């Protein structure tokens, strides 16, 4: 098949799935993280693209809640065999030897999804009530987070949320891998 040159690569390289922790469906008392609809969406979408779950509104969660939700969701992902970030280990195995020992790659995959990348990553978005951009396009210092009566939740602070990590991973580290894998 000849491919027309003027066509850009338009297909979706990855999808960020935003999970709202304030929703009643992820209530604190519930013993599970994602409900059946989330799993349904994630399973169907993970067949066509890479889906990266993102926990939004990290500023509304206490530390304990954030950690519980993260571990619950990553448990869910593992339980339902969602191959969300499997492209990383696939890429590794392809780059070296195509058909090396399968056991090794699978164990590597477990290791990758287990401790290296802790999905989902949490994110908080600043409150853009006032002016939010300076003339040169950079965000203001006080518009990188949300200020509360008791303090300031900074989106760029790695202790407050994983925004910086997410940005580096998706747009720098994983970019080639995300582009490299075929969507189907």
């Amino acid at each position, binding site marked *: *098949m*000849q*491919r*027309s*040159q*003027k*066509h*850009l*690569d*338009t*297909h*979706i*390289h*990855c*999808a*960020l*799935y*935003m*999970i*709202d922790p304030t*929703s009643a*469906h992820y209530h604190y008392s519930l013993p599970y993280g994602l*409900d059946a*609809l989330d799993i*349904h*969406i994630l399973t*169907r*979408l993970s067949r*066509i*693209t890479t889906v990266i779950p*993102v926990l*939004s*509104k990290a500023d509304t969660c206490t530390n304990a809640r954030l950690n519980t939700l993260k571990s619950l969701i990553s448990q869910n992902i593992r339980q339902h065999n969602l191959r969300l970030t499997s492209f990383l280990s696939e890429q590794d195995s392809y780059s070296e030897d195509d058909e090396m020992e399968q056991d090794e790659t699978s164990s590597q995959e477990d290791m990758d999804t287990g401790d290296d990348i802790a999905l989902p990553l949490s*994110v908080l*978005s*600043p409150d*853009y009530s006032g002016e*939010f*951009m300076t003339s*040169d*396009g*950079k*965000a203001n210092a006080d*518009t*990188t987070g949300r200020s509360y009566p008791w303090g300031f939740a900074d*989106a*760029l602070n790695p202790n407050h949320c994983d*925004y*910086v990590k997410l*940005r*580096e991973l*998706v*747009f*720098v580290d994983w*970019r080639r891998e*995300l*582009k490299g894998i075929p*969507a*189907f």
Partner: protein
Amino acid sequence: MSLQHQQGWPLSPPERPQQQHRPQHHTHRLHHNDHHHRTNTTSSTSGGTTNNNRAPDLRHSSSGASGSSNSGGIAGGGGTRPVSGSALKGLFGRRSKSQQYQDVPHKPIDPQAPRLPKVYLSPPASPELLAQATVPAGSMNGRSTSSPPSRHYGTSNYTASSKAASVASTVVPPMPPLSDSTSQRNPNRHSVTSTAASLSPRMRRRRRDPTPFNILVIGFLGSGKTSFIRFLTASLGDSKRIRNVSQLANEEAAEGNVEEDLTLPPHKTNGFVKHYLEKEVDGERVGLTIFDSEGFGPREQNIVDLQLTLLINFITGKFEETFAEVAPRTCPRCILMTSA
């Protein structure tokens, strides 16, 4: 008469072969006049027939002229050979007969006579053409848009793709001189795309375009998709490894992207807001497209299923848009196939 001429002119090319086969057939001419129902007088029929006679005439005359010009050029060269030969002798001294014979084709033929464009006669012989063909093939090497004959990545394809480009340029059949100006934008060409000489400036600009990277943000209603995108677009350049391209270029690129977006049929962008920005990631220009989707509705199985189907159609449509052979914007069949 001139008006009728203009009306009759675009209809003539498809009927040309019939006219050549049986130009004197009476019923055919009547049938043909029915096609020109805009023109209703008898003079119009004569105009139509003259128009239709005109196209093969022009073709014949052009091919005949080129053929005769070739022979005339050679004959003229033969005629003038003693003169220039003597001049050469005077300048460079004695020359053998074979050398004189070699001089003949390089002589300028009559500049007034129509002839084939030089591009199609000897593309590998002209060095600037070769340079034009190799430079874009090399520049697009590391990118996802590789040349059609060799869809691979890596530096080893540098020579292969450039060779393929030059070979493809030699394969191109000679065009009649009349269509020379329109041949560059001919939408039916296939192999011509690999030669840089035939690229329109728009397509050349595309080759310098940044690497695309497309991201879709999904989630339930109110899960913070839009505000996340807003923050992302504002603060992406703060990273050490991601650098802002100049704001002006970014706006230009975004404008160009919006322009292209408007040409899409509206159903393809329904519910999806497109944000486009250009950044420099590790020294590589990246054209970042972030799609903001409509949130999934109330948490009910059937509603979410419907929205999910739309979303999957969107993603697969984007995928097929990338690998479509013809321009996908004119082909609604892809969308039908994915939705089925």
